[in-house]
């Protein structure tokens, strides 16, 4: 269990993390989503006690990170920057980590096997590809067989096979009852792995919701229409009480799954349709819209919904 309360980090004038309150529970993969620069890595560094919060508090199973007596068996983390001395072999890198926490030496070989680096265990880490470096970082996170795992953008630099592997790994770790907290700037990635979603933008909490609810709230369906007799079609739809939105180009959009009704109306009035396609707004679009609103709110301070309310909108929907 990771619990954040009013967590805030300022670098000079720049507010990197702004009053974050949420918790990450066991047995689930919790996705931590936000565009680049949203403050995900900074939040994770504060969870690990590497950066000092400007305000607020964060606890691991009820304790501050620096009060943990067995940090690596409690929480394992993969950070965004490579935390490896390139001159050291993969084996020795993991060995010095294991020794620092009194973890049996046999675990080193086990985790190297798990991440598929056994063959290059004695090779220097600086010769590793991005993906191999990522696997070494994951091996370090798994070393203590911890009950909490935290991964900062783990799929970066991995090939498709590696991406599939890490998704499966995260799900199986959560299925064993562990807390899994993983960050990404890609909604599509989160949609595939996460059970729960925490979205931040500009350091502020935008949503804290289950993945199922997020999908339900955001999988907006609509019908896209193109018609050479555009004005007449607009009249017809208006009379039928159907609201039309002008999309880019000459296309029109109608919310909901009304394709049949529109097709029948067009036939009745003898209108030619060049396109009549039912569509689903992607979660990526929903995510972009959510974070874009945060940017707008940031740019024009004044009366209006606060960041918590944005979150509430998604929660309640």
């Amino acid at each position, binding site marked *: 269990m990771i619990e954040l309360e009013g967590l805030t980090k300022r670098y000079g004038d720049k507010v990197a993390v702004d009053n974050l309150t949420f918790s990450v529970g066991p047995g689930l993969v919790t996705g931590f989503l936000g565009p680049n620069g949203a403050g995900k890595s900074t939040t994770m560094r504060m969870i690990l006690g590497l950066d000092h919060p400007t305000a607020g508090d964060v606890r691991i199973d009820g304790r501050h990170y*620096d009060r943990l007596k067995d940090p690596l068996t409690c929480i394992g983390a993969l950070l965004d920057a490579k935390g490896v001395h390139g001159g050291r072999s993969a084996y020795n890198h993991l060995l*010095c980590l294991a020794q620092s*926490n009194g973890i049996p030496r046999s675990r080193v070989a086990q985790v190297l096997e798990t991440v598929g680096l056994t063959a290059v265990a004695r090779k220097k880490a600086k010769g590793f590809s991005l993906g191999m470096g990522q696997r070494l970082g994951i091996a370090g996170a798994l070393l203590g067989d911890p009950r909490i795992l935290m991964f900062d953008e783990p799929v970066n630099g991995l090939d498709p096979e590696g991406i599939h592997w890490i998704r499966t790994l995260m799900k199986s770790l959560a299925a064993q009852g562990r807390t899994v907290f993983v960050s990404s700037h890609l909604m599509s990635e989160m949609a595939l792995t996460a059970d729960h979603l925490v979205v931040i933008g500009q350091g502020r909490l935008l949503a804290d919701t289950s993945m199922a609810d997020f999908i339900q709230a955001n999988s907006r369906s609509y019908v896209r229409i193109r018609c050479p007799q555009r004005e007449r079609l607009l009249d017809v739809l208006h009379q039928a009480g159907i609201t039309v939105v002008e999309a880019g180009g000459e296309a029109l959009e109608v919310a909901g799954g009304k394709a049949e009704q529109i097709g029948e109306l067009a036939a009745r009035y003898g209108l030619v349709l060049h396109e009549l396609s039912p569509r689903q707004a992607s979660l990526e679009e929903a995510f972009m819209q959510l974070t874009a609103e945060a940017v707008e709110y940031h740019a024009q301070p004044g009366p209006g919904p606060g960041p918590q309310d944005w979150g509430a909108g998604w929660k309640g929907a």
Partner: protein
Amino acid sequence: MSTHQPPMPQAPAAAPHWQAAPGGPYPGYTSPIPIVRTHLGHALASEWTKIKSVRSTMWTLGVFTVLVVGIGLMAGALVESHSDSESLSGENPLSFGFFGLLLGSICIITLGVLTTASEYGTGMIRTTMTACPSRARVLAAKSIVFFTVAFVVTLLTSGFVAMVQVSMLENTGARTPSGSDWFKATVGISLYIALLGLLSLLIGSVIRHSAGAITIMIGVLLAPLVLALFMATESLSNVRDWLFEYSIPNQLSVFYANSLSESGPSGWDPLWIILGLTAAVYAGAYALLHSRDV
């Protein structure tokens, strides 16, 4: 109003409960790996593996040994071949180890700086601090391991050179070194050089940049002497003398009781000076390490 409620998936979780109920408040996975309360011993083992497993350690200590032994033996041979039975009358034969150790100290400085600063360059420091959240313990473990390695290596090489030189210079009229001469020229100077290395390690931790910290430390090593050489005017003579007497090379030479100057530090003074300086810098480096972000 029916019992139907709108879905509020995360609402209960929004208010964390710091004071959890007793008896497994944080459910979840339990590892078969035994939980160990970590202590300084674990950090020492880890740092020992680290220092052993990078090539820069082998390089710096290898070059150090070559310099100390090579220059020491060359100096001994050169002096011996140009002397008759009276030329070194009454002098301390151990003092010819000075030149090798002066140059060799640059290697120890480099290794000291790399022990801390290279972790910042590579990002390893974040892994280190995650594995051991006590920053005091990390700094202590690094310091103890490095100091021990530097001391033992300097003691072995300087001791070897001293023994060879004394036997080489037996027939040049040099006096037989006393036990105290031996002790200062081996244990004393090794403590001094290991502390100089430790000072470098601390500067590396403060500066967090290898090249920058090495440059600063070589400046500390050589600049006072070089500055003193250029202070020709009489009005600056006090400053010049002070710089000269307290320069690290002159302090090193005090361990052979042949200080380059008459006044200034003598006896064991240099050791107390560097001990005090290192302790003060240690306190500062720890305070900074504690307060800064990693």
